[in-house]
C-alpha cells in the first residue's frame, strides 16, 4: 500500500471560496501502484478533466483545490510551492493532452521540444537530450527517428503527433503519466495502435497512468481500475471488468445502457434496428 506511486485522498476542487455542495469536484479517492492504470470516466461536467489538472497542479485561479491531499511517491503536492511543482512537472509527472494539433508548438522543431524537458530537468546537454529523443521516437515507432528530429509538428499526421506527445512525456522517465482523452481526436485504427503503444511502454518502463476518457470501450481496453464520475462525485470505483460488466451504481448502469452496443460475428446477425438506447437523464431523474 505504501508503495503506491500516487495517493489521492479526499480531493475537492471549487471556485474561489465556495465550499461543500457547490464544489466542482468532491471527495476523490484513489491509489495508483507502479505500472498500473486507473481510468476516470465521465461525461462533460463530471469533473474528470479538473481532477487531472489538479493532479498536475495546473488549475488556474479562481479554481483551486479546497480540500484533500495528492501524494506523489509520498510527497504532498497540494499546497506545494509552484517552484517545486515546476520541478516535478514534465519530470516525475507528465501529461498527455487530447488535441495533438495544439499541444505542440508549431514553430519549434520536434527535436527541440523533446529535448527541452530533459535539458531543463536533468541539466544534460542538447546532444545528450537529442540522443535520448531519438531513442524514444524509435520506441514509439516513428520511422526515421533521427531525421524526424528536424521536422515540425505540421509535417506529421495526428497519430504521429500523439506518439511524439507520448515520447515527450516519457523523456524524463516519469513515475506517473496523466493522459486526458489522448486518443479521442484520432481515427479508430490509429487509436488502437496508440493505445497498444501506451500499454507496451507502460509494461516496459513501469509507469503508472491516470487515463481520462468518456469512452467506456477505451477504458475497458486500457485500464486496470476505473472511477466513474458524475457531476463532481465519484459514484463507483473498482476493477475495470467488474465495474463495466457488473455495475453497482445506477449511473454506471445507465451510461453502459446508453452506448450503442457493438457486435460481431453471429451476434451481429440478430440485431434489431428498432431497439432504443437507454435515456440516461430520465433514468437518473427516476433514481
Amino acid at each position, binding site marked *: 500500500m505504501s508503495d503506491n506511486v500516487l495517493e489521492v485522498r479526499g480531493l475537492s476542487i471549487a471556485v474561489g471560496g465556495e465550499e461543500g455542495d457547490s464544489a466542482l469536484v468532491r471527495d476523490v479517492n484513489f491509489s495508483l501502484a507502479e505500472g498500473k492504470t486507473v481510468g476516470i470516466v465521465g461525461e462533460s461536467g463530471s469533473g474528470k478533466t479538473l481532477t487531472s489538472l489538479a493532479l498536475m497542479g495546473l488549475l488556474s485561479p479562481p479554481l483551486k483545490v479546497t480540500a484533500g491531499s495528492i501524494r506523489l511517491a509520498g510527497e504532498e503536492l497540494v499546497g506545494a510551492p509552484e517552484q517545486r511543482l515546476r520541478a516535478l512537472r514534465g519530470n516525475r509527472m507528465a501529461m498527455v493532452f487530447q488535441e495533438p494539433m495544439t499541444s505542440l508548438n508549431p514553430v519549434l522543431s520536434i527535436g527541440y521540444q523533446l529535448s527541452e524537458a530533459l535539458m531543463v530537468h536533468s541539466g544534460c546537454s542538447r546532444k545528450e537530450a537529442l540522443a535520448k529523443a531519438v531513442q524514444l521516437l524509435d520506441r514509439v515507432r516513428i520511422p526515421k527517428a533521427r531525421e524526424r528530429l528536424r521536422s515540425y509538428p505540421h509535417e506529421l499526421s495526428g497519430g504521429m503527433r500523439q506518439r511524439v506527445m507520448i515520447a515527450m512525456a516519457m523523456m524524463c522517465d516519469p513515475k506517473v503519466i496523466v493522459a486526458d482523452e489522448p486518443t479521442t481526436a484520432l*481515427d479508430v485504427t490509429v*487509436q488502437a495502435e496508440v*493505445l497498444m503503444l501506451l500499454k507496451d511502454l507502460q509494461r516496459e518502463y513501469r509507469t503508472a497512468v491516470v487515463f481520462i476518457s468518456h*469512452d467506456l470501450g*477505451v477504458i475497458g481496453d486500457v485500464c486496470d481500475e476505473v472511477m466513474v464520475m458524475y457531476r463532481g462525485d465519484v459514484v463507483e470505483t473498482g476493477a475495470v471488468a467488474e465495474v463495466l*460488466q457488473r455495475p453497482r451504481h445506477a449511473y454506471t448502469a445507465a451510461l453502459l445502457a446508453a452506448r450503442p*452496443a457493438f457486435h460481431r460475428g453471429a451476434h*451481429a446477425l440478430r*440485431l434489431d*434496428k428498432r431497439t432504443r438506447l437507454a435515456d440516461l437523464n430520465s433514468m437518473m431523474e427516476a433514481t
Partner: protein
Amino acid sequence: MPNTAAMPAPRAGAHVLEARNLVKDYKTQKSEDGSKTFRAVDGVSFNLARGQTLSIVGESGSGKSTVARMVMRLIEPTSGQVDIDGRDWLALRGSALRAARRKLQLVFQDPYSSINPRMKVHQIVSEPLRNFGLCPASQLKDRAAELLEKVGLPTAALERYPHQFSGGQRQRIVIARALASEPEIIICDEAVSALDVSIQAQILNLLRDIQAKTDVAFLFISHDLAVVQHISDEVLVMRKGQVVERGDVRSLFSAPKHEYTVKLLDSVPGQRVFS
C-alpha cells in the same frame, strides 16, 4: 412558391437517391505522383431507398464528408451523376436548384457553429419555411412551435438565443430546422460525434422516431462503428476516396469481406470487456 410542376411525383418503391461514379478532384501544388490534382473521391456510387438509412463509414481522408457535401451541392462534383426522385439533381441551377433543395436537408456535426448565434430559435427553425415559401408569414411561429415539439423542446425555446442552450439541445434545434421543409432525405454528417454518450443516445432515438413517423431516408456519415451498427440498414465502407465494401448492416458486421473492414472492426475499443 416552388415550381411544383417541374418536380415529377416520386415513383413509389424506387430509390429516392441514386449516386453514380461521383468524383472530386482538388488542385494541389504537389502530390506524390507529381500530378497537380488530388482525388478526394474516386468513383463512388450508391442508392438510398425511401425510409431507409445508409451509412458511410470511414476514417479521416476517406472522402465520406466530401461525398455528403457533393450530394448537398455545397461543393460541386468533378464528375458523376446524382438522381433524386429520378430527376437529374446535378443539372439544376439557380432558382430551380434553390427550390429543389427543400427535399434534401443536412444536420451538421458541430451544434455550436451550425446555427446563427444572432437569430432567435423560432427564426432559425422557420427559415426553410420562409425561404421555400411553404407557409404564410403569420403562421411561421406556430409551425416553429410544432417543429420544436417534434424534437422534444419546449415552446419557451422559441424566443431564446442559441447560446442559452446545451450542445444536445442545439442539435435538436438543428434537427427541427432540417425537418421544417419535410424533406425526403436528411444527410447527417457526424451528427452525434460531438455529443456526450447520454445525449447521443437521445438524439439517435429521436432520429429513429422521426424516420418511423415520416419515412425520411437518412444518409448517415460517421466514423463510429457502434453508432453505425445501431441505426443503419446498409453500410458503405470508404477508404482514401473509394468504396472498399458495401452491404446490409448485419452481413457486413458479422462477416466482413475486405481486410480494411476487418481492421476497422478489430479497432473498435472495448471488445475485450464487452463481448
